[in-house]
């Protein structure tokens, strides 16, 4: 089981968290202008990275808040967790 460092509550077991998919996907500002191809990209296409992956988690059985994390999908080790709205810490990404 993973130990996940919630930026608001600290380290807790994975059971308290819900995974919420790839991070930094921005909903289109003006959806009506998108064509089908762009919609498919936004809705369905994912990076599915083998390596350092930026992803969202929610501390569902804790504070309830969403946050982002950088995790290496080849080892499941977290490099960093950071708050929604902030950029991924570059140092952590390089530290791999």
């Amino acid at each position, binding site marked *: 089981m993973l130990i996940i460092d919630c930026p608001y509550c600290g380290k807790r077991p*994975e059971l308290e968290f819900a995974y919420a998919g790839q991070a930094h996907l921005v909903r289109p500002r003006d959806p009506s202008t998108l064509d089908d191809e762009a*919609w498919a*990209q936004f809705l*369905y*296409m994912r990076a*599915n990275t083998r390596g350092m992956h930026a992803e969202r988690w929610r501390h569902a059985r804790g504070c309830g808040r969403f946050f982002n994390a950088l*995790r290496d999908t080849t*080892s499941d080790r977290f490099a960093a967790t950071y708050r929604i709205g902030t950029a991924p810490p570059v140092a952590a990404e390089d530290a791999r």
Partner: protein
Amino acid sequence: MSRQRFSALSLIRGGLSRQVGWQAQWRKAEPKPSYDAIIVGGGGHGLGAAYYLAKEHGLTNIAVLEKGWIGGGNTGRNTTIIRSNYLFNESAALYDHAVKIWERMSQELNYNVMFSPRGVMMLAHTVHDTQVAKRHVHANRCNGVDNEWLEPDQAKAFCPLLNIEQNIRYPVLGAALQRRGGTARHDAVAWGYARAADALGVDIIENCEVTGIRRLAAGGVAGLETTRGFIASSKVGVAAAGNTSVVMQMAGIKLPLESFPLQALVSEPVKPVFPCVVMSNTIHAYISQSDKGELVIGAGTDAYTSYTQRGALHINMHTLDAICELFPMFRRMRMLRNWGGIVDVTPDRSPIIAKTAVPGLYVNCGWGTGGFKATPGAAHVFAWTIARDQPHPINAPFTIERFRDGFLIDEAAAAAVAH
């Protein structure tokens, strides 16, 4: 190339001659500079595609590249369940195509894949389950796929160990039974296809990982960069399961896939006690007994994407809790081994078997948690797609473009596994 044929006589002869006369089942091939077609991925889907390309489409100058060893990925890691009771017409056609090939596969390959149509029983525990299961029964029968509804006492008659007491948390309210479903020996599927493809001249190259896809100026495929050098080919079929996104990214193609760990475990071997396959999607229990005597138990996927081929213990515990409640007799069984495989899951839980935007590049992926059952059918239509540069009618709906065009084949609820 002539191969030893297996028969009752050859087995007896082997027994009398101390089993020393057996040949290798396939050659250790060295990569040639170029091939007419290359399959990436030496699991059941890839080896099967190579076999059908050679047998039905006359393409014998082909290679299968495998980064590890034959059948060492999901082909050797799944729980070997075979069934075709999917809801939608497109899925029923695809999976039943596979079941029909399973039924004659051992004879065709002259290799015993131990296909055992012992019946797959899917349990219903709630009113909603019951309604969904009955809908499946009716939809399947309209599509010529056998499926029947059992009341709890009939379910217990079919699987006597089943606990149908109504005082448990999720009592059994009934079950849908596909009698043509069952299990097969997963390793034998890879080995049988490898042996048959090799006999037709296919080069099976292990320990050869693809590191890049080289393109022609016009855009088409020129060949593959691998850990064993460049290999030219104008046709490449990718059947790389959990690593499909990684391979396809080398040609700049993004797919609607996410790769998750899926776990399974087996118990200590015991005498035959469990006559069928029982599945419960509501409480995540999938169980059968192998011919070695182990209970083979499938757990759910972990919550997060990963390429680690392992998962967390609490996922297994969740499944074992359900097994213990459904089959109280197994409460003191000890588990021997657990492991994980990486499954590539699509948003609609249906596979992709299709051409891609790159000419000469084809993909068979997105099988999620249920690719084993489809192995021969998927391999057969994938070979057709590669050979003719157009889909077989059975896999025509399973395109990448369906996500753009809105023609999803939404088996998310129907696939009956823990997504």
